[in-house]
């Protein structure tokens, strides 16, 4: 397909979404509600056309350049659609379609939990703006364009988090999200200005990060990306905001928005050939810490959505690690390892987008049905939400990187890159780090297995722990269940036919790495054959051994030690499941358990037992709290400057002007 068609399709997507935004504004003015169907059709249509644009753009050879749409202050508003953006645009399409499909089931368009009217116009407007901003962020060709749409995206996401703004938690979450995205934008602006100063242009394509003078910009970009992606220690806002956003929006925010930060890192530092060892090692260190930190906190979390958010911290850490390894390998002159690491990054970013939005949608389905996300209240959902259970199960297999899922393929690439790095004759410290990373990654893998067996086991298996979890079972395949099933099918497909999918990534890899390596050759594990063999063996075992006995099978109670019927209170809870691990890492988690047993002969015949677990996250309570106190204090002090008197403000203006004039003459 010729490039102009792609321009048309991308343009069509933007047009559909812009029309949607306009419609919601008109509907607001007319004090009516935009029809759900129209809004969803516009969202899906735009997403489809963006996806088709990306497919048409694929292997188009030359980057599609939409130049000079309009003059925009410092520079032209220019876009480019190159091969690097394609995986991310496809991810955007996929997640947007899935969340559109599930919108009607997950969003109660009449009333929300507190009985306040849900503002559907407002919601659709923000979703459309979010999609528009994200697509154009991915297509931006220069810094100014990027910043504009980056802001559109961030503001839309922050406003979506406040959809249920009557809740205090939502307010706080939005505030935290805004703060984080402000910080990221500020750092990015600084970096962009620095690079403009160095190179004299705002065009991303002409920025190179080899020389020493670009070090501050590279560092600032890294920090901004870390904040936006939720890397330790800036991960604090992630769990709050993901948990508060409405279901479909949470899927988009967790699945796609964080990935734009990864995209920026690839576009600038990897394409710009960053060679600063400090940047590389800082990225590696931050990524490693957030891997361990994120999954540890996910493990002890009780709220299902917050658990998923903490696990995002882990996965983002993994992606950052892979990126830094690719930069390191390129610096050492090892193009094959760099290619493996970059492929791992791209594939994992895509995969994580798919299975995290799948898990997020499933968690929202549970939230919608049971009106709680607290694991201690859930249980036995396998019988009530069979499709959701199946999808959540496959998503968990994928996020734990177990074969034959897509997560395994991408994590394998990251492992393999570190393994090869340890073999090569690179400096000893690089080999030591690489080999140690294998151990750390396997540790993180085992932790995530513990985390997701807990999530499935407590939420879906066993029996209901509260009345809330005893709702009427789902019948048939609703829209949200369909979206979940499609996403999980994609997970399995991406995993079993990783070769084909990696071949599709090859153009992006060629652009990032500059080498003619076919990404499909980097993943030689015969997952498809093995899973076919496994499937056949498992079916034979089931049909030959368990199947014939199904007729004589007896259904009976779970063994109760002869004490009579067990109540759901005897079951393992989420907290008790993760307690042994929590205790081993009690120094990091600051986990405290207080047990209070009352009664006369309290040891043998207790009358009341009260157990309370408390966790005070170290970073939040010490670092963040101090920081917030400092900001509060300084702003209180600074308010004294703002007297409200026009004369004083004129004096400020005058003084500023004098300073500026003086600076102008001196510099």
């Amino acid at each position, binding site marked *: 397909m010729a490039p102009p068609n792609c321009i048309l399709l991308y343009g069509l997507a933007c047009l559909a979404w812009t029309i949607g935004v306009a419609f919601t504004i008109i509907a607001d003015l007319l004090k009516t509600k935009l029809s759900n169907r129209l809004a969803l059709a516009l969202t899906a249509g735009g997403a489809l056309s963006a996806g088709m644009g990306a497919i048409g753009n694929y292997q188009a050879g030359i980057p599609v350049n939409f130049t000079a749409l309009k003059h925009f202050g410092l520079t032209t508003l220019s876009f480019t659609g190159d091969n690097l953006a394609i995986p991310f645009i496809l991810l955007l399409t996929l997640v947007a379609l899935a969340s559109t499909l599930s919108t009607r089931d997950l969003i109660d368009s009449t009333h929300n939990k507190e009985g306040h009217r849900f503002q559907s116009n407002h919601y659709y407007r923000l979703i459309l703006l979010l999609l528009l901003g994200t697509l154009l962020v991915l297509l931006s060709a220069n810094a100014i364009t990027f910043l504009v749409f980056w802001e559109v995206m961030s503001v839309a996401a922050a406003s979506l988090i406040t959809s249920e703004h009557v809740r205090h938690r939502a307010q706080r979450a939005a505030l935290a999200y805004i703060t984080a995205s402000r910080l990221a934008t500020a750092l990015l602006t600084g970096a962009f200005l620095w690079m403009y100063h160095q190179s004299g242009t705002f065009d991303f394509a002409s920025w190179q990060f080899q020389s020493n003078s670009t070090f501050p910009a590279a560092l600032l970009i890294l920090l901004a990306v870390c904040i936006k992606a939720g890397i330790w220690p800036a991960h604090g806002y992630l769990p709050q905001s993901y948990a508060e956003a409405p279901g479909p929006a949470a899927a988009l925010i967790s699945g796609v928005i964080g990935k734009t930060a990864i995209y920026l890192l690839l576009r600038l530092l990897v394409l710009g050939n960053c060679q600063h060892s400090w940047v590389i090692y800082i990225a590696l260190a931050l990524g490693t810490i957030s891997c361990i930190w994120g999954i540890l906190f996910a493990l002890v979390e009780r709220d299902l959505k917050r658990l998923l958010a903490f696990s995002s911290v882990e996965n983002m850490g993994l992606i950052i690690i892979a990126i830094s390894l690719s930069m390191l390998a390129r610096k050492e002159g090892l193009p094959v390892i760099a290619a493996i690491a970059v492929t791992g990054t791209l594939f994992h970013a895509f995969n994580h987008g798919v299975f995290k939005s799948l898990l997020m949608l499933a968690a929202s389905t549970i939230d919608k049905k049971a009106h709680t996300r607290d694991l201690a209240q859930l249980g036995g959902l396998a019988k009530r939400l069979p499709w959701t259970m199946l999808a959540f199960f496959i998503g968990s297999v994928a996020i734990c990187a*177990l074969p034959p899922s897509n997560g395994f393929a991408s994590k394998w690439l990251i492992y393999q890159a570190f393994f090869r790095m340890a073999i090569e004759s690179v400096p000893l410290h690089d080999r030591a780090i690489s080999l140690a990373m294998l151990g750390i990654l396997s540790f993180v893998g085992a932790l995530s297995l513990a985390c997701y067996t807990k999530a499935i086991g407590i939420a879906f298996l066993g029996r209901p722990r509260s009345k809330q979890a005893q709702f009427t079972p789902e019948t048939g395949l609703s829209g949200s269940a369909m979206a979940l099933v499609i996403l999980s099918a994609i997970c399995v497909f991406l995993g079993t036919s990783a070769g084909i999918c990696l071949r599709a990534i090859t153009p992006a890899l060629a652009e990032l790495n500059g080498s003619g390596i076919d990404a499909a050759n980097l993943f030689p594990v015969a997952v498809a054959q093995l899973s076919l063999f496994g499937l056949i063996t498992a079916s034979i075992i089931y049909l030959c051994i368990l199947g014939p006995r199904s007729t004589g099978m007896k259904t009976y109670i779970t063994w109760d030690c002869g004490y009579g019927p067990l109540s759901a209170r005897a079951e393992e809870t989420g907290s008790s499941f993760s307690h042994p691990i929590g205790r081993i890492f009690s120094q990091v988690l600051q986990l405290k358990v207080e047990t209070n047993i009352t009664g006369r002969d309290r040891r043998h015949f207790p009358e009341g037992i009260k157990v309370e677990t408390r966790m005070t996250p170290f970073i939040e309570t010490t670092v963040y709290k101090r920081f917030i106190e400092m900001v509060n204090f300084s702003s209180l002090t600074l308010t004294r400057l703002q007297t409200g008197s026009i004369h004083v403000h004129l004096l400020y203006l005058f003084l500023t002007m004098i300073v500026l004039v003086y600076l102008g003459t001196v510099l």
Partner: protein
Amino acid sequence: MSIETNTGEILKNSGTFLASLIILPPLTIGILRKTKARFQNRIGAPLLQPFFDLAKLLQKNETVSEHASWLFRIAPCINLTVMLLLSLLIPWTSLTAIPHGIISADLFLIIYLLGLARFFTVLAALDTGSAFGGFGASREVTLALLVEPAVMLCLACLGVRAGTSDLSQVFSYEATRLTGQYGLWFLAGCGLFLSSLVELSRMPADDPTTHLELTMVHEAMILENSAANLALAEIGHYIKVALLLGLSWQCFMHCLPSHLLSDWTARAIASTGGIISLALFIALIESLAVKLRWTKLPEFIAYAVAMAIFSYLIALSV
């Protein structure tokens, strides 16, 4: 490496492999139990008792908890399948079950396949809503996450020295870069053996013969399984015992002088004998040592991790 063309060789290899896969795992358990019984001055069950048990279980009718979901009956099938796959991939005997070059026995694939089996076992344990299953599951994932880095590091160190992540090449008896690295082989073997004691729920970590479910790990997880379902879970576990003991024994075997193991028969006998002697050694440990308190276990696992770290240092330094 080229695919072996000698049909007789392939037949001999796969025949012996199949025989050892069927006989060795239950036999190892039988020997272990018999030795423990002799240590306790009991006659003990016959050596082939595990076979009889399995045969009996396969004939019985199953009882399933009313709270169980579809996972409960699928899990043992998947578990056994994964173990069969692993028996083809892991170099647990000196034989190569599948000719080189068809499927690479990738180290990361093996570790994550073990993870897949664990994922299903743990979920099946949680499925019935029994408190014991929950306890067992929680302990299993805790132990796994402590042991996993040790296993990964031991194998990765060997792989890094050999320059490949394909374990069938790392453990091959042809001259590789690992030949003569006795220290590395021995340390990795020790690390793997200590880790497999924990992974297989043997004595210092877990007492498989106790009657108090509250203290158990593996037995607590399969408490609700019965009849054929239990038989499948047990077969899977037996195979896992043979695989992991075999893997650590292969490490020790590479420490032996190479002229002793020059021909096929000597290696096959040594591999089989090694697995059985490791089983005897475990029986000895279980008769002399006591089960460690749950809170003391991380200290025990620290020995395995220490072995892994030593082999890490050797792998980097040479």
